[in-house]
C-alpha cells in the first residue's frame, strides 16, 4: 500500500474531495498546515509596526491507497488541485507496510 500526501490550497479542498470521491476513494484525513515556499506571505501593520507573515495557510491531505491506485490518485489530486499559480503545493507518495482498520482489526487492503 501507499500513503499519498498532498499539500494543497485550502480553497481547492472541496474540489479535491469531490474528485477523489468520483474516483472511488472513500476516506482521507485532512489537517491544517502552514506552507513556506515560493509563494509569498503577506504583511500586517499594527500601530505602525510591520509584521511579515511568511507562511501561507495550506491543507494537508493524507490518503492511504492500494499500490495499484497510487499513481492514479496522485493524478486525480493533481488535476483537481491545480490552479497554475505559484503556491499550488506538492504531492508525494510513501510506501506503507501495514494498515489496520481500528474498528475491525482488518489488515492490508481490506482496511482501506
Amino acid at each position: 500500500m501507499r500513503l499519498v500526501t498532498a499539500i494543497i490550497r485550502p480553497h481547492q479542498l472541496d474540489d479535491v474531495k469531490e474528485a477523489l470521491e468520483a474516483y472511488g476513494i472513500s476516506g482521507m484525513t485532512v489537517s491544517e498546515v502552514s506552507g513556506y515556499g515560493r509563494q509569498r506571505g503577506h504583511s500586517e501593520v499594527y500601530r505602525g509596526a510591520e509584521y511579515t507573515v511568511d507562511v501561507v495557510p495550506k491543507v494537508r491531505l493524507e490518503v492511504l491507497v492500494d499500490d495499484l491506485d497510487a499513481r492514479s490518485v496522485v493524478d486525480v489530486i493533481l488535476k483537481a488541485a491545480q490552479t497554475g499559480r505559484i503556491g499550488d503545493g506538492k504531492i508525494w507518495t510513501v510506501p506503507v507496510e501495514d494498515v489496520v482498520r481500528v474498528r475491525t482489526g482488518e489488515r492490508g487492503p481490506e482496511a482501506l
Partner: protein
Amino acid sequence: MNINTGDTAWVLASAAMVLLMTPGLALFYGGMVRAKSVLNMMMMSFIALGTVSVAWVLWGYSEAFGESWHGLVGNPFQHFGLDGLLGTRVFGTIPASAFVAFQSVFAIIAVALISGAIADRARFAAWTVFTVVWATVVYFPVAHWVFAFNGFAAHRGGWIANDLKVIDFAGGTAIHINAGAAGLALALVLGRRVGFGREPMRPHNLTLVMLGAGLLWFGWFGFNAGSALGAGATAAVAWVNTLAATGAAMLGWLAVERRRDGHATSLGAASGVVAGLVAITPACSALTPVGSVGLGALAGAACAWAVGLKFRLGFDDSLDVVGVHLVGGLVGTIGVGFLASASAPAGVDGLFYGGGVDQLWRQVVGAVVVLLFSFTVTWVIGKVIEATMGFRVDREAELAGIDLREHAETGYDLTVLTGGRLGAGTAATKPAGSSPLAGSAAGGPAAQSGTKTPEGASA
C-alpha cells in the same frame, strides 16, 4: 403623590443595567464550560430572558406584587397583563411601570443563575419548561415574601418583609439563596456529567469569564443601589458598599488561592468579584463601608473554600452555583445580623455593633426558610420534568457536545478549513434549486461536479 424624575431616571437606568447582567452571566458561565457546550450554556440564560419576561408581564408581576394572600403569594389575576399599571399610577416616587420594570429583571436573572449547576447536560426543551415553572412556583412567591412591602404596591405584602422583618435589601435570600438551593436540587436530580471528577473540564475561554464578571459588576450597581428605588443617600451608600465588598472579596478569594494552590488566578478574581457582589446584595444598605470590606473579604474566602466541596461530596454543581451563590448568599444574609450598623441607612445594629441577636435570628430564619423551600420545591419540579419529558441528554450528546445536539451549532469556526457545504433540505435551501438566480450566484454555474471551477482557479 408625584413622580420624582430623578428617582425614576435612576430606577430606569438601574433596570437596564440589571437586564445586562443576564447576558453578562451568560458570558461568565459560557466561558467556564468547554468549547463544545458554550452555546447551550449561554442559551440557558438567554431563554430565561424570553420566557420570564413574558411570564412576568402576564402573571408574574401580579403574583409577586398583587394583593397578598396571607403574606404568601400575590393575586396573579389582579394585574394580569399588567392591567391597571400603565397610567399615572405611582409607587413611592416613581411610576408603577418603573417598579414593574425594575423587578422584572430580578426574576430573569434569578432563573438564569440556576443553570450553572447543570451545565453541559440538560435538554434545552426541558430547561425552557423549567424556567417558566420555577419562576411561577418558586421565584414569584419568594419575591413576594421578601420584596413586597405592605402599602407599597399593594396594601398587604409578603411575610418575610413585613412580619419576620429580615433585612434583605436587594435579594440575598430571594435571589441568591433561592437560586443556589435550586441549583443544588437540580444538580442532584440530573446527576453528574460523564467524566466528572476524572476528565479535565477546564474553562475554554477565560476572557469571556472576565468580561462576564465585568458586566455583572457594572449591572450589580443597578441591582443594589437601584433597590433604593430612588436617587438619594441610601442608593449612594449602597453603591459604595457594593464597591468595597466586591473589591475585598476579590482579594479574599485570591488570598486563599495563593495560599492553597500557589497562584492567584483570573478565574479566582472573576469568581471573587461575584462572591462579593452576592454577599453584599442583602447587606448593602445596612453596613458601613468598613463593615462591607470585612463582609466581602469573608465571603471571598468562604466561597473560595466552598467551591471545593462538590468534589468532596460528589455532586456536580458544575459552575459552583452552590459554592458562590448559596454560600455567598448565606454569608451576606446572616452577616447582616452581625455587621449591621445603625449609622447605615437601614438603621439597625447587628450583634457586633451592640444590637444583640434580634436581627440575627430573623436573618437566619429567613435564610433557612427560603433555602429549604427552594430546595424542596425545585427538587420536585426537577423530578417531575425528568419523569415526564426527560431532563438530560444522552451520553453520546454529552461527549460530542451539547451544542451540536441541542442547537445544531458550533460556537467557534476559526480555521481555514471551512469544514462543510451548504446543505439541502431546509427552509433556506429547499427552494434554492428552483431559483434560477440563486443557482448562478457570483457569475458562474454552481460547481457541484468534481471539476475545477473558475472560482477554484483563483484560490
